């Protein structure tokens, strides 16, 4: 086996040195449950065979880059510079562990420190952690953190929050016997959150741009929350939007969680993704997740270490702030590299191109009779009402190699949103892509 360096002779020699006769003698403690015969599983395969087997599976999927593509709803396809993927495959990044020995992990640690700073600046907050699993679990953790900070156990979730995020938070809350209230889907951004605030709430969770693409002005809500001692948790599923839109921090959020996938990371059918988590300085010790901090070495040189681990499970055990012990290190690295290439200038410009392309698409769609754009405001994604079920339209389009969007019913199956379609546009869409989608919608409306 190409991955196993010990040759049969070496195995024999080592067993002999231990005074053992055969390899199964090593498993003496498990003797009565040791498998007597090999399991009914295929034998090892050469690289070529594995490439062929997995290549055949991959070929059964329709890759986004191969066709006009308009899906978003929490996962976005953007162009990632070639150097990003090259760098994250450096052995020293790819095959290192959590930086428990900081003296020989400064590479990972400095990247995390830079990442935390980037995330804090982008979200307009004081501090950020070293990343979490993804946006949805980060949002659920934000609710738990709000409980800890406020010592209340009651959360209110906006109807504009990505339904998967809401469900994830609900599962965790229900299991932990906390209260949670999720408002009904709000495709027209009409809900009045301020009216529903009360001082039993630990937090309100609101997303902007919301899952239907509407931009939400958080400032009035933030003021109202502050008045009631309620934390405002702002969720961002398309982090690129913050290149163009005022940061949640500047709008008054207390905790910002986001899905960071769309910078530096691919679609990957939904994972691995990158949870971003930022908050105010004063809450840092209630924050979940790994943190990297600056310090000095014994020669007085600047260096970085994992810190505040007294919050974490490996020290605190059942008293930990969360059970999480992994971050999304490599995805955070990709994010940080891509963002350091973009810089402020590039991020603004990329966001602008996305918005411009979405506006162009929206303008074209608005000319189609029978199809209605629901949004007044949006960044690079909006919601369209079709004359019939969106899921069926999407299927028909896919059969013709057009990936047209996400039916709202895919996310909220029983909510009466059958005719709504979420459409995202990015720098990747060409004029021809747009024309293809518009033609398909026009045809659909005429059915």
């Amino acid at each position: 086996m190409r991955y196993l360096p010990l040759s049969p002779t070496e195995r024999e020699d080592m067993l002999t040195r231990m005074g053992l006769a055969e390899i199964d003698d090593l498993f003496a403690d498990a003797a009565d449950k040791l498998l007597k015969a090999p399991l009914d599983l295929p034998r090892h395969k050469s690289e070529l065979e594995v490439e062929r087997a997995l290549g055949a599976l991959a070929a059964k999927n329709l890759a986004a880059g191969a066709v006009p593509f308009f899906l978003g709803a929490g996962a976005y396809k953007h162009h990632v510079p070639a150097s990003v993927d090259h760098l994250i495959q450096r052995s020293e990044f790819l095959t290192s562990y959590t930086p428990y020995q900081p003296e020989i992990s400064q590479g990972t640690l400095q990247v995390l420190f830079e990442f935390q700073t980037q995330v804090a600046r982008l979200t307009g907050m004081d501090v950020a952690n070293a990343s979490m699993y993804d946006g949805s679990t980060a949002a659920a953790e934000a609710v738990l953190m709000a409980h800890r900070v406020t010592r209340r156990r009651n959360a209110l979730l906006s109807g504009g929050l990505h339904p998967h995020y809401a469900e994830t938070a609900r599962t965790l809350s229900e299991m932990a016997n906390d209260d949670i209230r999720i408002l009904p889907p709000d495709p027209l951004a009409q809900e009045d959150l301020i009216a529903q605030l009360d001082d039993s709430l630990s937090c309100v969770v609101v997303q902007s741009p919301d899952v239907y693409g509407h931009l939400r002005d958080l400032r009035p809500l933030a003021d109202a929350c502050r008045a009631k001692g309620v934390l405002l948790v702002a969720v961002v599923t398309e982090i690129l939007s913050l290149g163009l839109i005022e940061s949640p921090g500047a709008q008054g959020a207390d905790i910002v969680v986001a899905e960071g996938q769309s910078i530096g990371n691919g679609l990957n059918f939904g994972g691995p993704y990158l949870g971003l988590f930022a908050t105010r300085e004063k809450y840092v010790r209630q924050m979940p997740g790994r943190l990297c901090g600056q310090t000095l070495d014994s020669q007085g040189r600047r260096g970085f270490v994992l810190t505040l681990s007294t919050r974490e499970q490996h020290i605190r055990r059942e008293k930990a702030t969360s059970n999480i012990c992994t971050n999304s290190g490599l995805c955070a690295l990709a994010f940080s590299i891509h963002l350091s290439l973009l810089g402020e200038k590039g991020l603004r410009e990329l966001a602008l191109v996305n918005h411009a392309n979405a506006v162009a698409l929206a303008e074209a769609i608005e000319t189609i009779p029978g199809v209605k754009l629901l949004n007044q405001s949006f960044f690079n994604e909006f919601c369209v009402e079709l004359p019939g079920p969106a899921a069926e339209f999407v299927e028909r389009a896919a059969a013709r190699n057009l990936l047209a969007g996400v039916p709202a019913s895919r996310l909220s199956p029983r909510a009466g949103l059958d005719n709504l379609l979420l459409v995202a546009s990015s720098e990747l869409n060409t004029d021809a892509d747009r024309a293809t989608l518009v033609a398909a919608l026009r045809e659909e409306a005429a059915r």
Partner: protein
Amino acid sequence: HETGLIFEHGREDFSGVDIDPPQDFKPRLGGLERQSPLGLPGLSEPECLRHYVRLSKQNYAIDTGLYPLGSCTMKHNPRLNEKMARLPGFADIHPLQPLSTVRGALELMADLSHWLVTLTGTEAVALTPKAGAHGEMCGMMAIKAAIAARGEAATRKIVLAPESAHGTNPATAASLGFTVRSIPAGENGLVHPETVAAALGPDVAAIMLTNPNTCGLFERDIVEIARLVHEAGAYFYCDGANFNAIVGKVRPGDLGVDAMHINLHKTFSTPHGGGGPGAGPVVLSSRLAPFAPIPFLRRDGDKLTLVEDKEDTQSFGRMAAFHGQMGMFVRALSYILSHGGDGLAMASENAVLSANYLRVCLKDVMSSPFAERLCMHEVLFDDAWMKDSGVTVLDFAKAMIDEGIHPMTVYFPLVVHGAMLIEPTESESAAFLDMFVATLRDLAFSVKNGEVERFTGAPYYAPRTRLDETTAARKPVLTYKAPVGGREPKEA
């Protein structure tokens, strides 16, 4: 030359990405245009490459040397896996594409599930958990749901966990509202059935055991313990962090396990990436399978569908957006197919063989409560042999850095004083194992000879000498702030 921070050498008006900003158009941002500055520096591509390449050189990695972190399983990461995960048919598909356009992705998930279920001798697998601890959460949620379904939610609120457990176990149980009852291990490092029996009762929901355990030992009485647990109406959660010792040799299902997470990054070599991403699928017994989280695969004849709607199922709900760590599934399956059933068993054998080889080669110079016992894939030493030498376990670990070897896991598990937990994995050659032995023996003799400075000042030859972790925690500096009153230093 030191590598400065991007905030010290990047420039906010510079971008390493060429973009033609759009011409005239009517924005529709609803008055929420950004007003506040971003403060994000941009690097040209040459600066960017050099920045990260130079940073990377300050990292140790499995590709650069032996990385014997016990319980972390730093094994070889085949590059084929990376190549496969980057096939556009896997890397470039959206989680919400119509299922008709992702048939291959669903097949891949089904194939991986088949391998995991077969290797563990269980009924089903929940693929969505995003890491080991998330998998624990998933398994314990399934247990909680099953107990609720039996109407015992109010009464069964205790979870048993041995003192040697990973910290995630009690943290997980506590975060789900369980109360953790700790079970002591016997002097032989194993959990005894009598101890478990004594702790069991109608208030117990589950036991969380790691097997092989964190002392590197196979829990000999595990079948009996499982019987007792089941008899008491509780469930058996197995922490699968150490599954890599027994893949293809022992099936956890045969031991009575009801739920177990599998760290794909440990057992099936998806890379650790400096701390993630992980993936923690959970295998479930038939008693727990109905409660698995959405989404899950359902096979109707030849056709696979993904059940994303909780209604009409007993599922306890959703744990995360979308369908799990697809990128890790591809890598894990690539690893699994490459090894095959035969290679996976051999990998376990070689991991156990290598750990025992180290045990035998080191036991005369280092001490261990279990030195004479067979260990599994990792070997545990304590610090009794260093007593009064003036050298601590931490010092010893730091001195290993100077010898060019990453330290083992130290001070874990907690059940042994001054623990040093060594896991060589199956990826090390005989030559590297011998080099490791020679290095540790040399260091051990050095301790015994009283060469204290070799340890207390170590590391001497690393990119940094010992870092002040206390100050870091006392006055946390978590983001970069430009020096006040002056231009930021321009370091190259």
